[in-house]
């Protein structure tokens, strides 16, 4: 590597190849400063900077430009004048969304669906992991793990199709089972009340085994000494789980919980969209599907963006809020 000493703003002689850490003498700090450090780093590691440009461009173009584009929520967007040329509309589109009778429906549907999904899908992986952790029979344990893990690899489209087929009123597995007990067949997906259950429990079916892995890993890391101590104290299996296993995996639980609460409003659009039909819309229309219909189908870009923005902000507030609470309560947070 050649050191030409060029362009260090005429300041300190370039520190001999001791890389970044070499502090300039205190008097020089202002002269060299952050800028100097960056410049030296670029000169020395230009290949790394070159390497990082394409992915950064990706983030700029596909993440940050859309954030800037979200300005059209405050504008009367039209194709001819473009994003920046379109006239300002102030909060008109937000107002239109809030005044819309759909507002209450989609917001409460989104919120209730997420909350239900959170409550139902949160404890089951933990229970599964704790139970698996008790088992010594390797074959059985492996089988349960492999089988419960497998649905994670099935696509949403397929999971929804399976749900539709299995729940179909005349020929599905569900009606065969209820028929076995002498109960009448029901068209579950035509009833708004069943939408949430189908959504949430198919989700649990698909992800419980996968989510359990993270807890199993945490359980594997528990100090064996703790079990010894519990044994000496005469704890039975249940007490061992309660006093050793659970406290040991609490940090993991907290992180997972924060992440799930943070995405409470970002409920899986793709699945709700697939499970929707005209009959269950009163409970299945959520913010994301509504945004899609307003934006892509009706091409009302400004209104759709306003709705999306509203959703993103709530999401961010929830995430930050939960993180603060978690830090207070457990001393642990995401950042």
């Amino acid at each position, binding site marked *: 590597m050649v050191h030409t000493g060029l362009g260090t703003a005429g300041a300190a002689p370039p520190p001999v190849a001791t890389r970044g850490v070499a502090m300039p003498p205190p008097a020089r700090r202002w002269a060299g400063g952050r800028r100097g*450090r*960056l410049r030296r*780093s670029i000169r020395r*590691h230009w*290949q*790394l*900077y070159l390497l*990082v440009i394409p*992915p950064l461009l*990706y*983030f700029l*173009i*596909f993440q*940050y*430009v*859309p*954030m*800037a*584009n*979200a300005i059209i929520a405050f504008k009367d967007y039209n194709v001819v004048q473009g994003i920046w040329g379109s006239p300002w509309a102030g909060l008109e589109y937000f107002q239109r969304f809030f005044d819309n009778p759909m507002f209450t429906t989609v917001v409460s549907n989104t919120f209730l669906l997420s909350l239900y999904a959170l409550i139902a899908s949160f404890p089951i992986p933990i229970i599964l992991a704790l*139970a698996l952790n*008790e088992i010594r029979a390797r074959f059985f*344990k492996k089988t349960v*793990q492999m089988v*419960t*893990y*497998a649905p994670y690899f*099935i696509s949403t*489209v*397929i999971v*929804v*199709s*399976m749900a*539709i*087929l*299995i729940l179909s009123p*005349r*020929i599905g597995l569900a009606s*065969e089972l209820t028929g076995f007990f002498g109960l009448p067949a029901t068209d579950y997906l035509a009833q708004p009340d069943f939408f949430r259950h189908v959504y949430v429990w198919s989700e649990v*079916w698909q992800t*419980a085994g996968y989510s359990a*892995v*993270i807890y*199993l*890993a945490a359980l*594997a890391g528990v100090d*064996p000494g703790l*079990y010894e101590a519990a044994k000496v104290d005469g704890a039975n*299996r249940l007490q061992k789980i309660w006093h050793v296993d659970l406290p040991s995996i609490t940090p993991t639980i907290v*992180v997972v919980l924060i992440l799930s609460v943070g995405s409470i409003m970002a409920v899986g659009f*793709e699945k709700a969209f*697939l499970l929707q039909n005209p009959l269950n819309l009163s409970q299945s229309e959520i913010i*994301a599907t509504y945004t*899609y219909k307003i*934006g*892509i189908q009706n091409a009302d870009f400004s209104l759709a*963006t306003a709705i*999306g923005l509203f959703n*993103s902000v709530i*999401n961010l507030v929830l995430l930050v809020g939960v993180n603060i609470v978690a830090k207070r309560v457990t001393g642990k947070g995401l950042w």
Partner: protein
Amino acid sequence: MSAAVTKPSRTSRTSRPDRPGRRRRVRESPVDRVFLVGVYILLTTFLLVVLLPLWYIVVSSFSSPEAVSAGRVFLWPVDFTLRGYEVVLTNPTILTGFANSFFYTIAGTAISVTLTVMLAYPLSRADFVGRKVLTAAVVFTMLFAGGLIPTYLVVQNLGMLDTRWALLIPKAVAVWPAILAITYFRTAIPDELREAGEIDGASDLRILWKVVLPLSAPMLAVIALMYAIVQWNSYFDALIYLRDDSLYPLQLVLRNILILNTDAGADVTAAIERQQLASLLKYSLIVVSTVPMMLIYPFVARYFTRGLLLGAVKG
């Protein structure tokens, strides 16, 4: 996959070193025995609940169209037939979907993994000035996003609508795999190796290519899988960005046939037969389209677990 999970072996815990004559297993108390039976029952229930729907679909796919549409299939194929598979595997729309999905998955994964490494390696280097700011900028996109329409406008302005690029580029880099890669590079690759390379006069790129990447095979496998699964399973990008159905990935074709009940193709001639076949075809289609993922799943599960652990360490 449970190698890591079963590590602290229970048997060693219950053994008593002071009395070597005793069998390793201490007698369980009655309470513990009952509890253990409960655990087995619980796990068996889990197992059946997950397995039954899968089994039902597979069994139905091998049954005759009449039996399926009459709802006579339960736990075993009725009037065994491969008719459904015949129709699925000769349907041009479905085959195009398969071919497209293979292309999107392979090309998309290659692009994504390359870009992720290009991002993660510099950000993992402590001597890379600016890494904190850049990492924060990347992670921030996890918390806040422009939304559907603003992103759509970008894709539109780039002229990507109705091209294959629309499925490969806009979702190319995900934050989670990037964090995983950064963590891996920082913790699993000893600094000394890099320094040794530097002393030998290797450039940063050369070190990355010759030293770091060969040592990162497990991590690369994990993020490649993450991207591949997402790409293989996605339909929504295709739904909004593509009009031309010859570009459709399998999942979108599946949605049209399985959920919207669109005609599976003009080649099924007789209307009555078609109607009966329609429900059988769905079962076969589900099985066929899930096979690629299920085939690789046992091989990748182990890697995937390891990847989750890596991620968990960071969290």
